[in-house]
């Protein structure tokens, strides 16, 4: 299990920084540091996500990785393969 600190710019729709922490306490400490750093920037989201892999996060938290058009296209693609 890995813990990923993700710093995400909501308006730009981009992950501006991410870092993996095997230790959850360190990840949480880094989160609070980052929250302090970006406290005057309301569009910056600082979150720690726990997952087996970065790939797992792409599946369950796709909004950090895809824009609305790409999310809709991915859903259409899956629909095309649904029997």
């Amino acid at each position: 299990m890995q813990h990923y600190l993700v710093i995400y710019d909501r308006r730009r729709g981009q992950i501006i920084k991410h870092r993996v922490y095997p230790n959850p306490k360190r990840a949480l400490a880094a989160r609070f540091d980052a929250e302090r750093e970006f406290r005057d920037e309301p569009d910056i989201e600082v979150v720690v996500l726990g997952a087996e892999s970065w790939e797992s996060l792409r599946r369950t938290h796709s909004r950090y990785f895809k824009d609305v058009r790409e999310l809709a296209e991915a859903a259409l693609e899956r629909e095309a393969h649904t029997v």
Partner: protein
Amino acid sequence: MPLPATKGDLNRLGHRLIASDRIVPADLEQLAFVLSAYQQVLDRVKTQLRDLGLSATGRVKTTKTLTDKLRRIHGFELSRMQDLAGARIVVSDLRIQNEVTEKIREFYESQGCACRFVDRRADPRFGYRAVHLIVRVDGIPIEIQVRTELQDAWAQIVERLADRWGRGIRYGEDPEDPEAQVRYGARTASRREAVERLMELSETSAPLEQNRASVVSSEKTASFVEECIAELQSVAQRDPELLDQKISVRLMEHLNALRDILADSDEPVDQALFAAGAETTLAQLIRACELAFARVSEALTTLRKTVEDHEGRLRGILQEIANARDEGA
């Protein structure tokens, strides 16, 4: 690790967190201490889910979403927040969603943990559909979200849009700049109309998923009835005299199984066909099966047509979203 704070401590911390825009260091330290306990339990839950063969990711609420929620819901207390720590599982369809939900519930109940089931499919929240299980481990609630791919796609689209149009759209509020135009190829619509279209997407997905699950279950029923007919016909072929005789104990079991399956299915079945029970002759049983097969097949044709209609609508809306350009961005 049990929660290192009483309910009262938590609620007082919640009040202080939203009392001003700047959180004082001592409160941040206490929050970090509390969230660390949630993180530990969340990690344990994710490991348990992995041992059940389920791949889950998780997060502890950010300070901003936590304080936003406390501010949004007047009088809401921190100790009552059930989604402070959450795990998420995405599965292919409704049938697997039901199986996974049941598996998780059985596991936690067998461990003596309280487990609350919230079905947001039956009771969607502003279009959001999913199953949530709130399990209480060491006194700490963990929300396990189980979503289908389609439910998740909807939620991700809305979340992503909320990043730009304001998080209020997740709670039924208007988007920021609601009259700003969104271009769909040659025509335009307002952001407000675009959000309404997302509600239609959710309302189309719900019956589509339900009907797809019904198709799978009806196909199984049809296949079982078909096998019954083949077996009964082969018995009759071997010994045509049996046709007018009462059915054997073995075939009676067939009849009972058939009746049970049809009773569980959504298909309209005339139970009188089975009422004769042991008095039924083999010929009557074959006829009953053929009638049941005809009904199931007819219902399947209607269901498949409904699924196709919903799929067409769903794809239309998704294509529209994929082509949209936000002019107000």
